[in-house]
Every structure is written in C-alpha cells, then in structure tokens.
C-alpha cells in the first residue's frame, strides 16, 4: 500500500537550507508519496529544488507572521496536514527549531518520536539514533498510527531523484490553530551571513583549553571565515568565559556532524566526543601526543595550535 510521508521543510530567509535534502533522501522509500510542507515561503519558489530530490506534492500553508513565529501554531498546522493527507510518518530536522516543533506534534498526537536519528526503515519501522551521550547506537522500534522523526542535520548524504511535483494549498481551520496559554513576545532573527550555524556547518574549527584565552579564538574565527567554517568550543573554553555557551560542542552542548572537525587544543573527553564523534573527518592539533583525541581522529598534528592556525590562514590567503 502507498504510504504518505510528510516532510517539514526548514527555510532560512526564504531559501531552502541544504540540510533538508539529506532528510528528503532519508525519507524516500518504496511505495511512498512525499509531501513537503512549506510554511514560510510560497511553494513555487522552492518547487524546483524539492523536485530534484523526489518530492511529488508540496503543501503550501499560508500563515500570518504571528502564526509563523509560534511553535504551537506550527505544530497544529502539521497536525492539520497529517489529517488532511492521511500522513503516516513525519520527518523534520533536529535543529533548534525542530526540537521545539517535532515533540509538540508527537505530544499532541500521542505519537512515537525519535529525535536526532540518522537512519529510518519505514518497512519495519526501525530507527537509529545515538544514546548514552553518544556512546551507543540504539535501534528503536516505533509503533502507532503516526510516526515522527527528527533527523540529525548533515547526517545523511543527499542523493538526487528527479520528480515532478504538484502544489496543493491547504485551507486551515483557524479554530484548530489556537495556542492555549502560549504567546510569542519576540523572535530573534539569526543573521546567517555572519554567523554560520554550528549544527549545519560543513566544517567546524573548535578550540579548547589549549587556546589559552578568548583573544586567541579570534584567530580561529579568522581561519573559519576563510574556510567557510563555523567555530566551536569545548566546555572549558565556555566555562572560562572565552566564548559563549552557544559555541559549546558536546554532551551538554551542540551535537554536530560536519564533514570536517578540526579540534585545536582539545583533549577529547568523553563528553566532548559525545557531540562530535559522528563528524566525517577529525583533525586534531594538540601539543600532547597522548591526548585521547590523538588516538581517535583521522589526522593529528603534534604541535602548538597557535603556530599552526596562523600558518593555515596565511596559506588560505595566498591560495
């Protein structure tokens, strides 16, 4: 039987975030029809991009600015979509926005939910995610009429599968969209042009205690700018007040899976690994050859990061 799958598309200033394509790739399965739900733009503007990855229906929902900003309203919109199109599985990204949206949907429907997953088998309803601070991979059997999945950004390689899509406009029943006791006072616009989002970055250059002070992080920022990378940090660097908490990678910080993770002056504690062990390639720069990150990476440099990084910047500038 044909299954209808809903995919919540995350946009950034009206443009599709690249990381959606990996999610669509993950959601594609035999005998399924893929419904992309677009809440923040007109569907026509994203149609071609979505078709490239196999979307065949685009559900366009028109929301007022106020409604767009309210995660409770958004969750109820998705529930409307689920009911209107008989959707049995919903995929969204496990980003900051997704973490405030997908659990609301699952809670309202009393549906199963696995966040931060990177593999889904819709025939057997099996999902893979990490547990125990990233030390184990759990395979979870999900049951129920509707299954909700939060997909770890960057965890799935996008694969194209050209299709042609039809835009369907869903008329919403406003009375179904009431956010009881929940009001938005202010939303912050993330300025993506200057601040590359840590969880979605292809390259992360991170610093730890070995960076010695906050000023030295400007060296990392400079290198990151040249590499089109984001800057991350260990908890020690955050606790010392050198950089804000939002830059912390690890068990109690962000969980990231960039293509390349460059760790500068980071020893590689279990808690730090919990946040970056799913990275593609790990390059460690550390003065101590015995630091645990040195035996758990792809490349290591036994040297002072404060000597290597400026050289790297110099070569990037001359490139």
């Amino acid at each position, binding site marked *: 039987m044909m299954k209808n799958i809903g995919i919540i598309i995350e946009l950034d200033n009206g443009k599709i975030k690249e990381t959606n394509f990996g999610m669509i790739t993950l959601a594609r399965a035999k005998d399924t029809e893929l419904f992309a739900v677009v809440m923040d733009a007109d569907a026509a503007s994203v149609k071609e991009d979505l078709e490239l990855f196999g979307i065949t229906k685009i559900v366009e929902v028109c929301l007022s600015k106020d409604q767009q900003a309210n995660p409770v309203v958004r969750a109820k919109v998705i529930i409307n979509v689920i009911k209107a199109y008989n959707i049995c599985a919903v995929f969204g990204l496990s980003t*900051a926005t997704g973490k405030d949206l997908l*659990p*609301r949907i699952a809670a309202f429907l009393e549906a199963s939910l696995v966040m931060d997953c990177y593999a889904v088998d819709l025939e057997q309803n099996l999902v893979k995610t990490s547990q125990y601070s990233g030390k*184990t991979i759990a395979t979870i059997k999900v049951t129920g009429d509707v299954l909700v999945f939060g997909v770890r950004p960057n965890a799935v390689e996008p694969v194209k599968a050209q299709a042609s899509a039809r835009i369907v406009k869903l008329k919403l029943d406003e009375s179904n969209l009431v956010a009881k006791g929940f009001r938005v006072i202010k939303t912050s616009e993330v300025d993506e042009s200057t601040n590359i989002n840590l*969880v979605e970055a292809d390259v992360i250059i991170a610093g730890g205690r070995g960076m010695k002070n906050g000023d030295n992080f400007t060296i990392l920022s400079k290198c990151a700018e040249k590499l089109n990378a984001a800057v991350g940090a260990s908890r020690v660097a955050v606790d010392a007040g050198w950089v804000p908490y939002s830059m912390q990678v690890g068990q*109690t910080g962000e969980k990231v899976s960039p293509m390349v993770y460059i760790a500068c002056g980071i020893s590689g504690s279990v808690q730090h690994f919990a946040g970056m062990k799913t990275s593609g390639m790990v390059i460690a720069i550390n003065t101590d050859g015995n630091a645990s990150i040195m035996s758990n*990476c792809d*490349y290591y440099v036994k040297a002072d990061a404060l000597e290597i990084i400026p050289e790297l910047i110099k070569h990037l500038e001359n490139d």
Partner: protein
Amino acid sequence: MQIYICVKHVPDSAANITIVEKNRIDENLTFLLNPYDEHAVTEAVRIKDNLPDSEIVAVCLGKDDAEKTLRSAMAMGADRGLLIASDKNHDSIETAQALKAAIEQDGNPGLIFTGKESIDAEGMQTMFRIGALLDLPVATNVVNLDIEAGRAVVDCALSGGTANTYELSLPCVIGAGRGLNTPRYPTFPDVVKSKKKPVKKIAFYDLKIEPSKAGMKIVELEPLLQKREPKEIKGDAGEVAKKILRILKDEARVI
C-alpha cells in the same frame, strides 16, 4: 505555589557503557541526577526564595536506587521527593503518563520543571508529553525565566546564541537549558539535612497507566565504534598547514 521537578536518575556521562542482552546496559555503574535537571532544581530554589510559601517536590520514575537522585535534588533544595518505583525501563510516552498521574495524585502544580533532555535516552520530548497530557503550555531549552503576575516569560535558546521570548500562562511546563543558571552544589550540612526529608514511594503499576497504541522500544544497542585510524601530519608549521589544506581540498573536498 507547588513546584514539581521531574528528575531522572542517569548513568554518569564519564562511565563506560557495557551492553548486555542486546538491548540493555549493565547498570552496575555510577548513576546521578541528570545534569539538565540540576538547572531545573536550582531555578525552582531561586523561585522559592522570592515566594517563600512555595513547596518544591522532586519526582522521579525509576528503580529503587533512584532514591539517590531524589536525595541529590533534596540536598540542592527540594523539600520532598516522590519516587515512582518500577523495575522496568519505560519510553517517554509511559514516563510522561506516570509523571503526570503521580503529580496529579500528589498535589496542585503551579509550575512543572524538567531538564531539556536526559543524557541517557536523549529523548528531548518528555516535557512536551507532560504538557499535552495536562493541557498546559510548554517551553523547552529555557535559559531565562521570569515569573510575574500569573505568567512565565521565558527565553528559549536557539543556535548561534540567539533566543526567542515566549509568554506562558501558569501553570506551565519548563524544560531547563544549560544557560538558565549555575547549579548550586550542596554543602555537607545540606546533604545531611536531605537525608531527613521525606520520600514517598508509589508503585508504577498502582498508577494504572493505560497502555498507549504508540511506543518506542529499544530493540538493539551497539557501542558506537570508533573506526578512525590516526595518521600523523609532520613537518614545520608551514609544511603542516600546506598538508592540511591539501587534505581539506583533495580528500575531504570542503574547499
């Protein structure tokens, strides 16, 4: 105001995890209060400082030895504990149902706290399920909280150091994020005092939870194996920089 804090008894993040019987961990290791829940307790204590009539109740669904985590919460300032004892592991649907039932049975929540996630299951959802069951508004990853005139104003952290500000009517459910406060670790006298605070124990099955048609069941756990084979990049700083660039270009293809 009665403030309930859901606290989870979780394995120490620094402990090595051993998998037994395919889908369980060997629980013979150090368990402690979930780190995010420490922020929840600390925040509840701060609120009580301003509203001295408040009572702080820590609630935990866990095995008998989870009482230790309730004692930690009480040493940090909770007034009493509520242990929903079960020798099984429950998914977040059952957990939320049990926490809701126990809280309802016990009192009148003016505020319910959780952490933003548990570090073992990493579910990120229990607070929303409790909120839905009690029909209360929910905010998660809360890094600033002001209680005023029957409402809560919260900042919820997003990536990049930014936050959204929401207003929730009371009672509501608050998932504490790490930026919310600095946990106040107990002093020795606090620990001694906590031993005398009451813990009420109820059995999970006495709550008569209706089975849900939805569920999440762990069928297999595997260690996340590190397959990396470290290769050294040698040379002076200039040579190393050149080699790194070549790796980024030719092997990783990110530039």
